[in-house]
């Protein structure tokens, strides 16, 4: 049970075995994805045919299109990045405003509003997607019927994808930033005001720097969640497919190891992001 109580040998062995099996379960899928990115065969399947970098650097002349020559795939990575940047910027901005609203202001209906702000987290992503799709189409139809204006950004496409992802990612940013603002010692602001600083100067020099770790953290989470989002995006996507949608399409057709290559690329990027965030949170300056 716990270290201070006697544990029989079989229990110790079973615990070690369980941890081993659990880690195997956790890392086996990721390992095979990484390994088969280097297999010299047309499909990511055993047996092992030898090591190759074709799935990264191959071009059409060699008969194998590697990741760095696959314009479609590279394009979709770019699409995902630009969507994620928009979602991150919007979520952090609105999330910060929401945090100040909920922690600093008093107004009627605040309880209802704080409840409403959590609802996007319990609505399945597919339903967020279809509801926004239906509503935006109604608005677009209304615009074209009444004013004769074609509001193309309300039709399925990247602007709608950004709005759809933003609709629930901002709730997470709000939670993260509010939690830190709640712990802020307001006497610091009072001291600065007493010393003659303006409200804007206090916000800029004291409150926002204090919130910085939460803002950076929620920006990283927002970027990652947007990049990986599938459910909401699937319903709102137009002709430009972000990476997850593109990969899904190819996986249904039976794809080449180029998907393994792009996956390995993503894993490395995520690992770098995760490690740098952990380093940040450990450095004493940020606490």
């Amino acid at each position, binding site marked *: 049970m716990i270290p201070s109580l006697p544990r029989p040998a079989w229990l110790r062995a079973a615990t070690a075995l369980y941890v081993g099996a659990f880690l195997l379960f956790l890392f086996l899928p990721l390992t095979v994805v990484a390994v088969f990115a280097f297999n010299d065969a047309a499909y990511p399947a055993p047996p092992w045919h030898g090591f190759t970098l074709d799935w990264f650097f191959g071009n059409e002349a060699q008969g194998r299109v590697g990741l760095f020559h696959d314009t479609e795939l590279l394009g979709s990575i770019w699409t995902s990045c630009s969507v994620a940047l928009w979602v991150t910027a919007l979520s952090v901005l609105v999330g910060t405003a929401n945090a100040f609203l909920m922690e600093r202001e008093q107004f009627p209906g605040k309880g209802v*509003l704080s409840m409403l*702000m959590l609802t996007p987290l319990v609505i399945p992503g597919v339903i967020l997607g279809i509801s926004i799709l239906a509503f935006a189409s109604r608005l677009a139809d209304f615009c074209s019927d009444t004013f004769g204006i074609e509001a193309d950004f309300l039709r399925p496409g990247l602007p709608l994808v950004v709005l759809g992802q933003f609709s629930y990612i901002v709730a997470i940013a709000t939670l993260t930033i509010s939690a830190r603002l709640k712990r802020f010692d307001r006497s610091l602001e009072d001291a600065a005001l007493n010393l003659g600083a303006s409200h804007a100067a206090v916000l800029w020099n004291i409150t926002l720097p204090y919130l910085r770790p939460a803002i950076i953290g929620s920006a990283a989470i927002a970027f990652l969640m947007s990049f990986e989002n599938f459910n909401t995006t699937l319903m709102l996507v137009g002709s430009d497919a972000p990476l997850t949608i593109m990969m899904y399409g190819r996986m249904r057709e039976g794809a080449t190891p180029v998907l393994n290559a792009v996956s390995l690329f993503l894993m490395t990027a995520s690992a770098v992001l995760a490690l740098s965030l952990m380093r940040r949170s450990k450095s004493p300056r940020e606490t």
Partner: protein
Amino acid sequence: MSEAPARARWSRRLVLALLLAPALLWLLALIILPHVDLAVLSFRERVAPREYTPSLAQYRTFFTEPLYWHVFVRTALLSATATLITLLVAFPIAWIIAKLARGRTSALLFVVCLIPFWVSETVRTLGWMILLRESGVLPAILVHLGITAEPVELLYHDATILVGLVYTSLLFMVVPLVGSLESLDNSLIEAAYDLGARGGAILRTIVIPHAAPGITAGCIVVFMLTLGNYLTPTLLGGKNSLWFTEQIYTQFITRFNWEQGAAFGFLLLALSTAMVWLGLKLSGQRFSDVMRRV
């Protein structure tokens, strides 16, 4: 002299208005109005091109067409099963992280458990496909070991969908469980042990009641995410997946029958909300506390 307080009051109001505007815009334009619109869509029927009448036809179709409600019930049951398995798999590891491992080992184990979830679900599913398909890694190993004579297809079964769903959900169970187990005072367990209680009794009377908030939070979130999942069931279950989100997609995108799709969406939302509500009632917790836990 009376101008200064008046100006201060106005500027406070201005700040409040500026802070309220984005929040209200977000909630109204992206959450409330779209869902009202979806409700309106689901309660109407097309009688002629661009002509609609209010009706319950979409919901009637759901109950009279066996395929639809079969898929619905199946999705709910498989999601519940996946949630239960996730809890059973995650609990021991959460216990080890919170109670058995010390200091650095515990922190390291926790981080290691989180790593796979920094990677996209698409990538993780690709891994399972490479492992499980007929030409994949595990069938080849089974043949090599002489367990099966021919490679067997391990994809496209319900069990495959469950493996994928449990894998995807683990993080959302481990995190709240570790949180609630860490706050359990070891001396309570020691006291129970000294008084003669053994493993099962301690687990039942001390550990589980204490960890109940974490267990509820994990189960609610996992059930919800599983129910709304699309990628894992469709890729690992193939044509046999029969997942309800897939029906919604088919109605909305493939058949362009938005009224029917909207009704399906609402049914899924109702089930999801009901389960969240039930979980909160059973454990006597508040919604906002649960969401902060995860």
